[in-house]
Structure formats: structure tokens, C-alpha cells
């Protein structure tokens, strides 16, 4: 694997510094060079890397570290702690509304995993939170997007609200919320079409859906393999519609997933779930510490 060498190098530096009885500024600098390299190779955005390295360096050459009995171990710990902290610290739970129904919007770039995650989320909310979800087919653009969601609904024996491709997504969402009320379905999950963050017309469509009934969650669904551009995507989606959280998909792959850190840093919105496979039970709560280790290759 391409990252093996990197991981070894990083662990090498970490081990070296860990074993030291005394750590000076040059040691820290040397280690931070390796950390910077590791983070960039893990797809953490360059600007985010810079800030991070600066912050950690300041802490690491602080007097308390230098004077401690195990300065090397302290420095390694700082790197991981800071990364975990940046990742959001504690696990964050999903929000439900007191006013029925709870509305959840799934948004993101093309192919990120919105439709699949809609199904997984509905399944999880039913099983773990005893909710009655309604899946809403609001992607009228992608070929067979509606059939895809309908198939998923059938697999899960969950209702899917669809009106074909002639009605506007905003109208579909409006009717779906009404339908949920009359059918006593307490959670509406709206699957929207994939779109570029720079597509103004389609971003407006999301604003219009959002205006129907303030969603309790707007999840930005992000492919964990995303590179440097992740910050642009997240910033634009957040600025346009105000996301409430992030779902990181395809983490069953072997990507380092540095995009997670970038997105978290620029939006300050929590990563709430991770997708761990294509099947409908492959959605898990997010663990900041595990993600920190993964990005560093430790």
C-alpha cells in the first residue's frame, strides 16, 4: 500500500522522539515536518495543515513539555489530542424535532452516497431510535434515482414518497412533509440530487426546500476519499444552506480520510455518522479519536 512507507516514517519519528529524555526545538521541528507530510498525504487541506502544525508546535515547545520527564511522549500525545479535538472531541447525537415531523435533508456532490445513506439512516433511526421514517425521492435529475430509492425502500420495507420526475423537488418535498403528517410518520428524510457547490440554480433549489420547514438536520454527505477540494465544497454548502452535520461515506475503503479534518475545521460542524459499506446496516456513529489515528496512520 502506498501509505505504508509514510506510516513507517511517521512512526519512526514518533518512536525516536518518544524515547528521548530531552527534546529541543529542533527535534520538534523535525517531527512536525513529518507530521505535515503525513497530513498532506492523507488529503488534509494544506491550509488546515499549516494552522494545525503551527498550533501543535507552539504547544510542543512550551515549557511544561520541555520540562516534563517524558517530553517525547508528551509531544506525540499533543499531536493526537489536538487532532482528536479538531475532529470534534465528543460523539454528537442526531437532533429530533418536538414538532412533527423531524425533517432531515441529505445534500452533497454527485456520487457521494446520499441515496444509499438516506436508506441506511432510515434503517438506523427505525432500529435504534424507534422512529417511523419516510424516504423522499427529490432527485428528479439523475437517471433512475427514484427507482434506486424505491428499491432501497422495498429492501427495508419502508415507505418512499415519490412523484416521478415531472414535479419540482421543492413541491415533492412539500407534499412529502404533508403526507408524513397525515400518515403519522415522524421522520422525513429527503434525498436530494447530487450537485456542484458552484451550481447556483441547484443551490437555490436546496434553499427553497429548506424554507418549507426548517430541517432539524441538514447532512452534508462527503466521500471520505475526497482530496484538497473538500474545504471548498464544505464551505460553499455551509454558506448556502447552513449544514448541521456531516456524514463521511466509504470509510470501509483504505483512504486516510483527511477530508474529514478539513471539513470539520472549516465548518465547525460535527461529523455525525460514517458509512462503512454498501449494505443498509453499514452506518455507524463517528469516533473522533479513531479518525485521528487513521489520518496519522497509527
Amino acid at each position, binding site marked *: 500500500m502506498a501509505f505504508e512507507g509514510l506510516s513507517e516514517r511517521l512512526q519512526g519519528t514518533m518512536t525516536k522522539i518518544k524515547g528521548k529524555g530531552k527534546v529541543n526545538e529542533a527535534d520538534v521541528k523535525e517531527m512536525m515536518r513529518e507530521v505535515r507530510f503525513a497530513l498532506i498525504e492523507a488529503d488534509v487541506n494544506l491550509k488546515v495543515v499549516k494552522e494545525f502544525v503551527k498550533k501543535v508546535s507552539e504547544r510542543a515547545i512550551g515549557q511544561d513539555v520541555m520540562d516534563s520527564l517524558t517530553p517525547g511522549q508528551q509531544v506525540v500525545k499533543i499531536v493526537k489530542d489536538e487532532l482528536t479535538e479538531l475532529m470534534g472531541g465528543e460523539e454528537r447525537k442526531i437532533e429530533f424535532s418536538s414538532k412533527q415531523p423531524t425533517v432531515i435533508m441529505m445534500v452533497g456532490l454527485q456520487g457521494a452516497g446520499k441515496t444509499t445513506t438516506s436508506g441506511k439512516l432510515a434503517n438506523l433511526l427505525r432500529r435504534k431510535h424507534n422512529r417511523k421514517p419516510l424516504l423522499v425521492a427529490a432527485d428528479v435529475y*439523475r437517471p433512475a434515482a427514484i427507482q*434506486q430509492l424505491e*428499491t432501497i425502500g422495498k429492501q427495508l420495507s419502508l415507505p418512499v414518497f415519490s412523484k416521478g420526475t415531472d414535479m419540482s423537488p421543492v413541491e415533492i418535498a412539500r407534499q412529502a412533509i404533508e403526507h408524513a403528517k397525515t400518515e403519522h410518520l415522524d421522520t422525513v428524510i429527503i434525498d436530494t440530487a447530487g450537485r456542484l457547490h458552484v451550481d447556483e440554480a441547484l443551490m437555490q433549489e436546496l434553499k427553497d426546500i429548506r424554507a418549507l420547514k426548517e430541517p432539524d438536520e441538514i447532512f452534508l454527505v462527503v*466521500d471520505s*476519499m475526497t482530496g484538497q477540494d473538500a474545504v471548498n465544497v464544505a464551505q460553499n454548502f455551509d454558506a448556502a444552506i447552513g449544514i448541521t452535520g456531516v456524514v463521511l461515506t466509504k470509510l470501509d475503503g483504505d483512504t486516510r480520510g483527511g477530508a474529514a479534518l478539513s471539513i470539520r475545521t472549516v465548518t465547525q460542524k460535527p461529523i455525525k455518522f460514517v458509512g462503512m459499506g454498501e449494505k443498509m446496516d453499514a452506518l455507524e456513529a463517528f469516533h473522533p479519536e479513531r479518525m485521528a489515528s487513521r489520518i496519522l496512520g497509527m
Partner: protein
Amino acid sequence: AKYRKVDEDFFEELEEILLQADVGFETVIELMDELRYEVQRKNVRDTSNVQSVISEKLVDIYQAGEAETNEINFVDGLTVILVVGVNGVGKTTTIGKLAHRFKNEGKTVMLAAGDTFRAGAIEQLDVWGQRVGVDVIKQSEGSDPAAVMYDAVRSAKSRGVDVLICDTAGRLQNKVNLMNELQKVHRVISREIPGAPHEVLLTLDATTGQNAMIQAQTFKEVTDVTGIVLTKLDGTAKGGIVLAIRNKLKIPVKYVGLGEKLDDLQPFDAQKYVYGLFAEGLDKEQQLEDADK
């Protein structure tokens, strides 16, 4: 505009621009070393003259001594094209676009619905088939993809079509079972027609970062990838990693995807691509500098 000097600051900026285009550390460092040397040798003084030098070097790195090969390897009789890649990168959409393109060139085209796994995948390919006006060979969801391919190759041969394009399910390269399944699909095709598939196109998403290198490595091992289609270049991502992939693995990019419509596919142009990696970034830096003055 007044152009700045080509100094160490300039190189650092360029390095950052390329890293932010996902080119990757190794390749960027290699490039920067060669560029410093080249700039010195040619005595390039300001940034207005350095752009062409950068372009040249990037194309050099991209090609690594190989000839430009973005043509599809059409053979006499039936040409089989297998499209592979990880989940959601744009395989099925690209197949629709390719079919449209080949049909416009006067070829008869057939599609094989080899993704029998993902919900709605067969229907999706079917819609593309209807849009383009070509036949789609399919079986029911959940059936063996190798069996679909066998069927498709047989029908394509008996109907005398020129091109058969085979869709496959998205799979992450670290899933051994799924990669074995892909190998089997590949084998079934070669058994029916020696030398086929004539092209194996790996679809890569331009928004993907460094993981695309591992994707290319693994898919190449399993299916003998002959070319890359770089999709979603209509966004703000630059797809810099394919530069490193071509340099290291010698896989050429054949097409780029620039949208979701039938016509949004273009043959790869190395010059244009490398220019996109850095020029806009340099301009932006220049504007910032100018504004500072």
C-alpha cells in the same frame, strides 16, 4: 500586470498550488527540483515567462517518455470495453456518454448491465441506453455479473455490433472478494473473444485525493487497465493525482468528464489539463500580490 520575480517565494507558492490540486507530495517535489534547474538553465527571470516552462515540465512528468495515447484501441469486428472503478465515480454515466460518442462516429453500440448489485443500477443504464438509442443487455438484479457479460458478448457477436461497453458495479479496491469477481468478469470476456476486453477504462473522480493512486495500482493489477476517464472536472477539483498516476503507472488518461449530460465528455488534452493545475492559482496569487501593493 507587473510580473514578479521567479524567486524562492514563487517556487513555494507554486508548490502549494500543486499540492492543493492533489498532485501529491512525491510528484510535486520531483517537479520543483526539475523546475528550479530548468529556470536557472534557461535564465527565466519573471513569472510571465515561467508559465510555459512549468507547462512543459508538467507534460514531461505526465508522459514520462511515453507517447501520447488517448485513442481507443478499436479492432476489426467487435471491440469490447470494460468500465471499472470505485463507487460513485461516474462509470455508468461515462458509458452513456461514450455510447453517444461512438454512435455519432457511425458505430453500432451495445451496453451490458454488469452492475447487478446496486439498487437501481440496471434501470440507470437502461435510461442511458434509451437516451442514446442503443440496446442494453441485462438480467435481473442479483444475478451473476459474469453471466451477464457472457450473454452480452454472445449477443454482440451474433448481432454484429461494433462496440460493446460493459458496466460493472462500483467496488473499493481493498475488497478482495469484489476484486476477484471483477477478475472473473474479465476472464469470461477474454475467453469468448481472445484479446478482449480491448480497453479497460478505469473511472477516476477528479475530487478524489491521494487514494486514487492506490485505486489505479490495484485495478491495474486485477484488470490490466488500459486508460483512465477522469470525471467531474467541471467542478473546482483539478484531479492532480492522475499526473502522478500516469508518471508512475504509465496509464494514460483517455477522456475527461465535464458534466452530467450526453455531450459532457472530451478527449483528454494534456496541455490543457496541466495548465488547469496551476495557471489559475498563479493568477490568483498574482492578483493578491498586486492588491497588496
